[in-house]
């Protein structure tokens, strides 16, 4: 990492809502110019963390520094330099797209030309459409346009692609990559692993208000010990297989099972699968499903918490 001061520095950041500890003392350093991802299931504390960094929620404890400034002293200067897209903000329904962007532009002393931003987010054709007529993807691009129009140094995106179709998602990724390519820093929360793997240099995986893993997506996946995952299921009523038997198969690094479904982590699936078939044959058990994929952050979360990201 470079010696430039970090874009964001948090120390022992904490927030509690009544009886619930939303954020439980976390430390984060986000280097300038990179995209940093906060990953985790709903309720993990991602949004609270981001909103404390954005100066929208006052922390109960700890420190936040953004671009070397802090909220108590430099709030206005900080707001001039950051762009924000909150989770599910519904902007004024009966304003035109261009009117909304112009409104946000007026708040910043310096920034982009409104028409230029319309092109960046590819909303030129919808320039004069009312916000209420926009699709989900177009609304998100408008939200990002409002975040970009003040020419920020740092961009905060809270679940920017949740609920979008793959094409809209890719369009948004392009916009974020463009911003990064001009040297901007991005903080992104998501529960899509694919998104984090594509956009982020570093990710922090959060669960129950704590950071449970921190590193580059590649490093984190590598920490699983192998980069392939084999999932299979047995027919109803089949006797369960002892984990020790599976672990003894050649090249298997880890075994996990949940009812009739088994997950193996392995470096070389082409060695494991034939041996697995022989073992099942010998026991007279039928397989009903077999999948293999490259290990992802999703698998990392599963191995760290025993839970899937999306159904927690």
């Amino acid at each position, binding site marked *: 990492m470079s010696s430039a001061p970090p874009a964001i520095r948090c120390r022992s950041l904490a927030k509690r809502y009544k009886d619930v500890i939303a954020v439980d003392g976390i430390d984060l350093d986000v280097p300038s110019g990179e995209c940093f991802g906060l990953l985790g299931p709903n309720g993990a504390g991602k949004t609270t963390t981001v909103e404390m960094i*954005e*100066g*929208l929620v006052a922390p109960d404890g700890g420190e936040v520094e953004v671009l070397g400034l802090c909220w108590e002293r430099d709030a*206005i200067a900080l*707001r*001039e330099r*950051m762009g*924000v897209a*909150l989770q*599910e*903000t*519904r*902007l*004024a329904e*009966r*304003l035109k797209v261009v*009117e*909304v962007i*112009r*409104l*946000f532009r*007026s*708040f*910043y*002393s310096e920034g982009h030309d409104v028409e230029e931003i319309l092109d960046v987010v590819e909303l030129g054709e919808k320039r004069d459409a*009312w916000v209420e007529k926009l699709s989900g993807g177009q609304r998100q691009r408008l939200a990002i346009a*409002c975040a970009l129009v*003040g020419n920020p140094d740092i961009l905060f995106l809270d679940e920017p692609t949740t609920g979008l179709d793959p094409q809209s998602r890719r369009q948004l990724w392009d916009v974020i990559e463009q911003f990064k390519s001009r040297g901007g820093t991005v903080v992104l929360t998501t529960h899509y692993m694919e998104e984090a793997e594509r956009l982020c240099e570093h990710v922090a995986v959060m669960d129950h208000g704590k950071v449970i893993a921190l590193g580059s997506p590649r490093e984190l996946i590598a920490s699983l010990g192998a980069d392939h995952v084999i999932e299979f299921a047995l027919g109803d009523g089949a006797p369960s297989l002892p984990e020790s038997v599976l672990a003894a198969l050649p090249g298997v690094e880890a075994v996990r099972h949940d009812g009739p479904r088994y997950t193996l982590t392995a470096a070389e699936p082409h060695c494991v699968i034939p041996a697995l078939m022989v073992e099942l044959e010998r026991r007279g058990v039928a397989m009903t499903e077999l999948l293999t994929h490259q290990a992802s952050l999703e698998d990392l979360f599963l191995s760290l918490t025993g839970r899937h990201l999306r159904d927690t």
Partner: protein
Amino acid sequence: MSGSLRRYLDPLRELTLARFREQLRQPEVLFWVFAFPVLLALALGLAFRNRPAETIHVAVESGPGAEALLDDLQATGGFAASVVSPEVAQEELRTGQVALVVVPGDSLVYRFDPTRSDSRLARLATDNALQRAEGREDVRVTRDRLVTQRGARYIDFLIPGLLGLNLMSTGMWGCGYSVVDARRRKLMKRLLASPMRRSQYLLSFISARLILLLPEVVVLLGFAAAVFGVPVRGSVLSLGVVALLGAMCFAGMGLLTASRAQTAEAVSGLMNLVMLPMWVLSGVFFSSSRFPAAMQPFIRALPLTALNDALRGVMIEGASLGALAVPLAICALWGGASFALALRVFRWH
């Protein structure tokens, strides 16, 4: 204009425009602001128009001499009288079909409800007609000279009240509802994450009200002048100042009412709680002097009462602003205090 002032006013102008556009683009808002008060004025103006002197409805109980009394009344004119059985007469009086029952006999008996003003009028007119028919002579010569004056009719009383009512409703709803809506959609939170100042946000509600105020006043008063010939006796400038102060007062109260509420239901309930007593007490449809004396200090202190008094002062009596200092001060106090309190307790998230 200095740079920093422009930096302050640019966002204020854009916020104001945004608010103004949003309102104009909602047909229901236009209806409540412009069409509703006009329709209300039209309906009430027609219902309570001054009618030619009314026919007096009288029942004569059947019995000896009843027919003669009927003849006397009919000969006088202005009466709709009939001879009916005592039971029917009683029923007609009870249900208000007649104002008075005449019971024939050696001494005439008038049966009526003294709390009904039309009955008291009918008693006087009937007695007068019957006494004259029996030969009473008036001791002095009198003549009637009839005048019906603009400015003294019900509609002239009503229009300033409706204007006050409208300034209250649009001020309260226009500011209060938008605040809660922005809070609910997290738009307010998003705005706060930008360098926008909180004062710009709150002032934009006031300035958007100002833009809407002029057409609002002109439409209602123009309609009243064109259709009912309702005059504005005082200066237009005075009227403008009173309307402006009223609008500001209720914009402040709207912001205060909405300063904590998080849902549309909560703010609607609060709005009604604030406005309903003034609908009834503040002399919109009838004079607030009809309420008991003990309530008057309270009623006088309500902002809508003060605004209505000031509007009537300008429109009906042609009063100068100096003469209206007390009601204007009451409005200013309510508005200023509400705005200051709203700033302190406002929930920004």
